[in-house]
């Protein structure tokens, strides 16, 4: 029951907080304490403490649907990624927002949705959690943002992703009914036994949902607008954790389900990913808004992860796992950095800023570390993952790797340009409003930056955590 409790605690806390709370309550602090407790508890899964790793309850016996959860190495990585980032995301918020109790309640509810997605071992349950995670994020992104177009934009995001996941639902129902069980083992068995032509369309039904979520080119156009228009916390939840649902979905609910379908469409998917990497990197280079630039850079990074997965090699799967963790940490830190700049100076236009490094040395150092992680310098968390992913793409095709590898160059260009525009040069009246980090801000950014280095120097624990699980998924 440990796993079940871990997943349900945030939901219960979240519901209580939003229903019973009011503006006088220190909601942010309460949510922070809950999320830190959940994080500490989740670490219990990593050690050998005899805690149960799976739970199965009867749910809808008529259709053989179970409420079953299980955590192998990959799931544990995703759990820790989620429970680690949520406290940071909560801490970055404003403690004086109106209706804060609803906001933080929603964030906790969403955490349950995310944890459910990463542990569900029943197809139908997976779908339920998948949608459960979406509803809170819609409200978080739309209603705690100050952007004028937030309603239109977040609604487009909502409709678009729902549209994708309905296809997934069709595929899951089909597989579940056909095999008379929705359990993951049954779905694997049913899927594998399907003739190639059937696997092909099942592949597309599942893939569309995951591709929109990540997003993969050309299903990505909701993403930059949504990231830019959302509240900072919404953007962090979306980019840091939620997009990993798509990646995780591919690894757990696509590759092993329809191997023939994957084989059939592998080339097309990798080509789309590689086009996306180059295309979004180029677009990132001409952005003037640092938040939008970060959004496009995220698409490029995710494109490489997807390409690595579809290369279907041990290096690709390992690279994807490491990179999900690294990307989560880096992108949350980056969006926090963007938010700090916007809050202090009132602008996100890079050309209006400059010279902040002399004003705020601590901020400059931590921004630099995060930037190095993002451009995957060796000994930062971004490197090992990116290296393994590129090596997987290489083993698929040298030409594909040559193009995907351009991210090494373009990524350096747009990140260094952004850093240079914001941090270097002379101070101007706008940028001189920037003061160095407060202790509270330092408490968020410094641990994230530390993780950038630690995971880059010593990724072994993560590698050993996920290795056995990945073997299973690749069918090795």
């Amino acid at each position, binding site marked *: 029951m440990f796993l079940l409790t871990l997943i349900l605690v945030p939901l219960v806390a979240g519901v209580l907080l939003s229903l019973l709370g009011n503006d006088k309550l220190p909601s942010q602090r309460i949510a922070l304490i809950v999320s830190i407790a959940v994080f500490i508890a989740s670490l219990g899964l990593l050690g050998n403490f005899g805690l149960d790793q799976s739970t199965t309850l009867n749910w*809808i016996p008529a*259709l053989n649907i179970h409420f079953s959860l299980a955590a192998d190495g990959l799931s544990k990585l995703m759990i820790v990624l989620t429970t680690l980032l949520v406290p940071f995301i909560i801490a970055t918020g404003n403690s004086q927002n109106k209706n804060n109790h609803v906001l933080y309640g929603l964030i906790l509810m969403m955490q349950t949705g995310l944890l459910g997605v990463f542990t569900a071992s029943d197809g*139908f349950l997976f779908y*339920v959690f998948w*949608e459960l995670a979406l*509803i809170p994020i*819609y409200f978080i992104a739309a209603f705690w943002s100050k952007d004028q177009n937030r*309603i*239109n934009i977040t*609604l*487009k995001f*909502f*409709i*678009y992703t*729902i549209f994708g996941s309905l296809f997934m*639902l069709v595929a899951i129902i089909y597989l579940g009914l056909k095999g008379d069980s929705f359990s993951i083992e049954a779905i694997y068995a049913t899927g594998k036994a399907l003739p190639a032509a059937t696997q092909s369309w099942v592949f597309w039904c599942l893939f569309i949902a995951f591709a929109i979520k990540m997003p993969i080119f*050309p299903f990505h*156009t909701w993403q930059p607008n949504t990231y830019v228009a959302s509240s900072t916390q919404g953007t962090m939840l979306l980019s840091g954790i939620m997009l990993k649902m798509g990646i995780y979905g591919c690894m757990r609910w696509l590759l092993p389900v329809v191997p023939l379908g994957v084989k059939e469409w592998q080339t097309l998917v990798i080509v789309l990913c590689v086009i996306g990497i180059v*295309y979004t990197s*180029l*677009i990132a*280079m*001409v*952005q003037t808004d640092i938040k939008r630039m970060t959004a496009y850079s995220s698409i490029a990074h995710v494109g490489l992860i997807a390409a690595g997965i579809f290369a279907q090699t*041990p*290096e690709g799967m*390992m690279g994807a796992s490491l990179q999900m963790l690294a990307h989560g940490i880096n992108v949350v830190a980056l969006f926090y950095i963007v938010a700090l700049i916007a809050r202090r100076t009132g602008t996100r236009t890079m050309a209006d800023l400059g*010279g902040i490094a*002399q004003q705020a040395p601590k901020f400059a*150092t931590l921004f630099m570390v995060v930037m*190095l992680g993002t451009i995957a*310098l*060796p*000994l930062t968390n971004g490197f*090992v993952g990116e290296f393994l992913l*590129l*090596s997987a793409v*290489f*083993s698929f095709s*040298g030409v594909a790797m*040559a193009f995907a*590898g*351009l991210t*090494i*160059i373009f990524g*350096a*260009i747009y990140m*260094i*340009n952004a850093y*240079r525009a914001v*941090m*270097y*040069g*002379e101070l101007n009246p706008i940028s001189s409003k920037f003061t160095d980090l407060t202790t509270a801000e330092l408490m968020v950014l410094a641990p994230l930056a530390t993780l950038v280095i630690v995971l880059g120097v*010593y*990724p*072994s624990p993560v*590698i*050993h955590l996920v*290795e056995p699980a990945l073997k299973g998924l690749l069918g090795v």
Partner: protein
Amino acid sequence: MNNLIVLIPLLPLLGFIINGIGNKKLSNGVISTIASGAIFGSFVISVVLFFTLRHSFEQAPIVVHLFNWIDFGNFHVPMAFQLDALSSLMLLIITGVGFLIHIFSTGYMSHETDFARYFAYLNLFCFSMLMLVLANNFLVMFIGWEGVGLCSYLLIGFWFTNKEYTAAARKAFVMNRIGDLAFIGALFMMYQNFGSLEYEQVFKVARTFSVDSHTMTIITVLLFIGATGKSAQIPLYTWLPDAMAGPTPVSALIHAATMVTAGIFMIVRSHVLFNLAPWTMDLIAVVGVLTAIVAAAIAITQNDIKKVLAYSTVSQLGFMFLALGLGAYSAAMFHVMTHAFFKALLFLGSGSVIHACSGNQDIRTMGGLKKHMPITHATFLVGCLAIAGIPFFSGFFSKDEILAFAFDQQPILWIVAAITAGLTAFYMFRLYFLTFRGTFRGTHEQEYHLHESPVSMTVPLIILAILASLAGFLGLPHVMGHNILEHFLSVNGNVLNLSSGAEVALMVVSVSIATIGIFIAYYLYVKRSMVPEADATPKAMTYRWSQNKFYVDELYDYLILKPIHFISKIMYSGIELLGIDALVNGSGNMVTGTGNTIKYLQYGKTSYYLFAMIIFIVVILFSLFI
């Protein structure tokens, strides 16, 4: 004993951490003591290890395994170091010259407010460079390889309020990364073909491949492209002259003595692969000699003291690549070493000059510094004699060895290299005469400020001058005695098949060429007291081309940068906004049948209806099953 190896990179890393965190709280004295002490510690350990272990290098390299960095399935990359003849030579150069430059910096940077940041970066650089040479596999080498690039970026842009400097830093980093992409490609090919990235395993399997096989050619070409980025060779050399934006001691350490020689080190390290790829070797020789002559042809018309030295560095690196291409690995390393001494000396000397001239770098407004700065003058002259190849200064031996190999294998290469050597003598003595001889051409105010530099700066100059004079005796040509360095390195390359008579004749020729170069410089700038004209005066076309660096930067701008920017713009405003996104919105409209959803959505309420609808559908779907 062997575990002491770990301390060599670790000490500068600790120095970086202490100075990086201590920053504003520490006094300048403490900061420089920590930084210089750290690198001095590494130097002492390097020397001790060299003397105790040098005989065991012949049997097998000494490997120290720290931990498994990446380890799963068939993919094993340990964090491990390897000490052998090649890496110990590099260790001595890096820590020795590095220490002297740290000392020099305490004087040179003493007026700087950001003293701690400077020394932290300098230590971080030493750490990265030491990782690079100590690695026992290609991926750990890549840590150092990218790390030195980062430090170079940080130090070129050290004065970051200046946008031009940070642009130069960016250019250096990006050009390095272009090379790095090729380098990574080579690593993937090695992993695929040899099943490992560890030197020993890679070379063992590689030896089973036939000469000139496609695999070997592609791997070596990719590695070489990586080297052109790091070591500033055609076509990726244009960042190095711009890198002079950094503080001068940085130019001496990173952009002359150590980092830029990483490409040469890497090729010597993987010589087993290159020996199997004759086609690549020819390519390297040609690129090397072309870079040498092009850079020399630019150097002869530059008026910025550091720019002359920068192009000279590019040109000398070209000589080293020529040596590599000829299979003269030991000669290349010999030149790496002597060049580290004399070019660090020249850069530090120029730093001393710039320090005296309050930041002025234009040699047209210098002159007559000899009487104001006797030590700087004398040591700079030693550097000039060494690089020009005057017997028995160090450059004479190392350059002549390369020229002898060229003559032996491909006389055309020898002719080009010999002409380059003549140009080198000319531009170095042009620089020397314009700076130190004649009379001072600046203002009285400036002249009043001229002074010899403090002891912290002159002592490193003197030590480097001694090294630049004597280091050549480690690699005597066969007619004169024993080549200690070649014997020590014992890298398996080509051997020289020249008779003693031919060797002596070649020396006479190259010394004559150098003397002619010096004489022309003397005639123009001392005898006729010529001073290069102001930039605006019209000049002959060839002169203009040289002075404008053959317009290569402009060419890259028009052929690469502008088109990429243009394409990016088109992609964003054309394809992304008007294409894909419009298509998505359009299909959305078709599905909802409103024809113009966006318009409706702008009426707040509609969006809520739509949202409610979706929620409703989801609930229905759920309830159907529950």
